[in-house]
């Protein structure tokens, strides 16, 4: 479970949010909303440990993520604005490296299956710079299929995807939540779940004194 208490972040002179507290238990999707520039990406980067918040504590399974450091990273999958794939390597090579870095190397068959599932059959051996924006994003999203991490943090994963890919991604997120994982995501899209709970968190300007989460009951 991800447990956040009294989190505050500023960018330059601007207070993005403060006294932000919420919890993301297993089998839960946290949907972070807010207008452009409200600090969604900053929050997500803070949750990953990429950015040190100005105040507050972030705990994973009861321990501070600063103390857990690499142990926390092992439980985490972060998908940011940048795809995190190498343009000169093929999709297969990119994913092979990603799996090795996660210390969970899988056979090429598993990677090829995952690439086929995301709709990139026939493109496995092309350097990813030859692919379209959407296809690159698909290569990067294939990490979600292969991942066993209990916590996913996804920053605008739906952009540049076509209808089929959006469906598949929604399905993947639903599977992750149903399997007992947690997902934190920012998107302007609705994500239907078959099982588990959706929480919504809206980030507002800092002068709004109560930027606290409103919970939604589980959608069965």
């Amino acid at each position, binding site marked *: 479970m991800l447990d956040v208490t009294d989190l505050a972040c500023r960018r330059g002179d601007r207070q993005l949010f403060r006294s932000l507290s919420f919890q993301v238990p297993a089998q839960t999707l946290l949907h972070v909303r807010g207008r452009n520039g409200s600090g969604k990406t900053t929050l997500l980067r803070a949750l*990953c*440990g*990429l*950015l*040190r918040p100005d105040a507050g504590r972030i705990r994973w399974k009861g321990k501070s993520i600063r103390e857990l450091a*690499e*142990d926390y*990273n*092992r439980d*985490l999958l*972060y998908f*940011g*604005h*940048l*795809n*995190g*794939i*190498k*343009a*000169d*390597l093929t999709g297969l*090579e990119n994913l092979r*490296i*990603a799996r*090795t*870095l*996660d*210390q969970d*190397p899988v056979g090429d068959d598993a990677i090829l299956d995952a690439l086929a599932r995301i709709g990139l059959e026939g493109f496995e051996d092309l*350097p990813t710079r030859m692919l379209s924006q959407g296809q690159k994003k698909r290569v990067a999203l294939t990490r979600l299929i292969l991942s066993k991490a209990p916590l996913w943090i996804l920053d605008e994963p739906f952009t540049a995807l076509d209808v089929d890919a959006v469906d598949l991604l929604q399905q993947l997120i639903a599977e992750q939540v149903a399997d007992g994982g947690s997902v934190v995501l920012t998107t302007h899209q609705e994500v239907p779940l078959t099982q588990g709970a959706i929480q919504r968190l809206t980030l507002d300007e800092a002068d709004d004194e109560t930027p606290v989460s409103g919970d939604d009951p589980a959608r069965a």
Partner: protein
Amino acid sequence: MLSVFYSVLARDILLALRRRTDVLTTLFFFIIVISLFPLGVGSEREQLQALGPGVVWVAALLASMLALERLFAADYDDGTLEQLLLTGQPLALLVLAKVLAHWLLTGLPLVLIAPLVAMQYHLEATAVWVMMAALAVGTPVLSLIGAIGAALTLGLRGGGILLSLLILPLYVPVLVYGAGAVTVSAIEIADTEPYFYLLGAFLLGALVLAPLAAAAALRISLE
């Protein structure tokens, strides 16, 4: 843990092989800088022999500097660096793998080509061997120290110049003892020993400390 180290190392080498120009520019820069001096100062044997060691080392410094900017920049731009930071591995280990790949691609070629370019300076055979050995010990130090600067200046505008200003002063000891070893070898080969001990000490120190410092700098740069 070793598999992760090899994976990063193999990845960077594979990437460089797919994009050979980056590696070749460093090498040609090294060759051209060294070849300019005999053209400029004339072909007097004694003068060139005196200049040779220093020129080769300064060229090696500048060539390694030139390649440094790209050490983390490409990974930073496409987001793979972010992913490296979020792997369940000590970041210093990954940095060490990247630096080793960087040295194999930009440092080692300099060591191997040095005897050829040294011919222009009428260096004795012993001096050439000593120079190769000194470069082999010294250039990894340059890559390791340079990694700290590359990590600190990551994502800054005009980072290249800043990187040179930060790092070149730190290269001075390597330059002094590296070129010194070659000069001394012309008088008495046994006298080069302390120079190599010192270069070796620099290498060991940098090997232990530089990856940790560069890893910390990367975390700051990515905030």
